């Protein structure tokens, strides 16, 4: 029962904040709504029994990426370049005319139908299981997997992070006049 309540709250938070990111005019508000959406996704991870991934999600995204985004918004002025012209629905700016909407609707219909066809067999083969309320900790198994089966990707990601660190520092350094 607790899992269902957590799932409902997290799903509401995730979907509501994601749609708010898309429709809000202010870029700063958009960043804060992204924060809510990422916390909701961490809650969804918790309902799936992925405790380590949920904590990592909160630490990396909420503690790192969104703060970085907020700094970038503040450093670059935070203009959003909203076009004055109203479009259909009046929601998002710069979204095109009625032909854009028609073609987009058709393409998304084909996309969704194809994916439902593909996914429905997987869903039928795996009905809703009844999980207990106890979740075994996954940290131990994840640690073993990371240094046994996936050790190459683990080490390469450290090289990638070092490259990203040095690259970001070089790209954003002050200009020499």
């Amino acid at each position: 029962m607790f899992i269902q309540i957590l799932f409902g709250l997290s799903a509401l938070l995730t979907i509501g904040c994601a749609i708010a990111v898309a429709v809000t005019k202010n870029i700063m508000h958009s960043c804060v709504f992204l924060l809510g959406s990422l916390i909701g996704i961490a809650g969804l991870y918790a309902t799936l029994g992925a405790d380590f991934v949920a904590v990592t999600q909160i630490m990396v995204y909420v503690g790192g990426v969104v703060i970085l985004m907020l700094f970038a918004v503040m450093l670059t002025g935070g203009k959003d370049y909203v076009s004055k012209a109203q479009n259909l629905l009046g929601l998002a700016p710069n979204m095109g005319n009625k032909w854009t909407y028609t073609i987009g609707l058709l393409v998304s219909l084909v996309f969704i139908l194809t994916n439902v066809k593909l996914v429905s067999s997987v869903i039928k083969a795996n009905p809703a299981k009844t999980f207990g309320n106890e979740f075994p900790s996954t940290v131990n198994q994840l640690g073993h997997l990371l240094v046994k089966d996936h050790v190459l990707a683990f080490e390469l990601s450290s090289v990638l992070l070092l490259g990203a660190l040095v690259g970001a520092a070089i790209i954003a350094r002050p200009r020499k006049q």
Partner: protein
Amino acid sequence: MISLASYLVISLILFAAGLTVMIARKNLVAILLGIELILNAAALNFVAYSRYVTNNLDGHIFSLFIIVIAAAEAAVGLAIVIRFFQIKETVHVDEATQLRN
């Protein structure tokens, strides 16, 4: 109980919201926000499938690597955006037409 399909629907909505942000917004930082939403939709799908279909933890590993790469991508992307702002004094995406100067 909660089914696999509910997680997939949430992931679909996240993906659609991220795509809308990427298309509709003209601010470079906002486009990076859309990329984060799309990456999160993919990572949520990985964890949901690993819970309901494969019953092992490989999806969790993949999701962790997605988080790592998203963090690196955000750092480099925002550095490029700030550099672009220093040069052009704007972050409108249509101004980014030249590779140098």
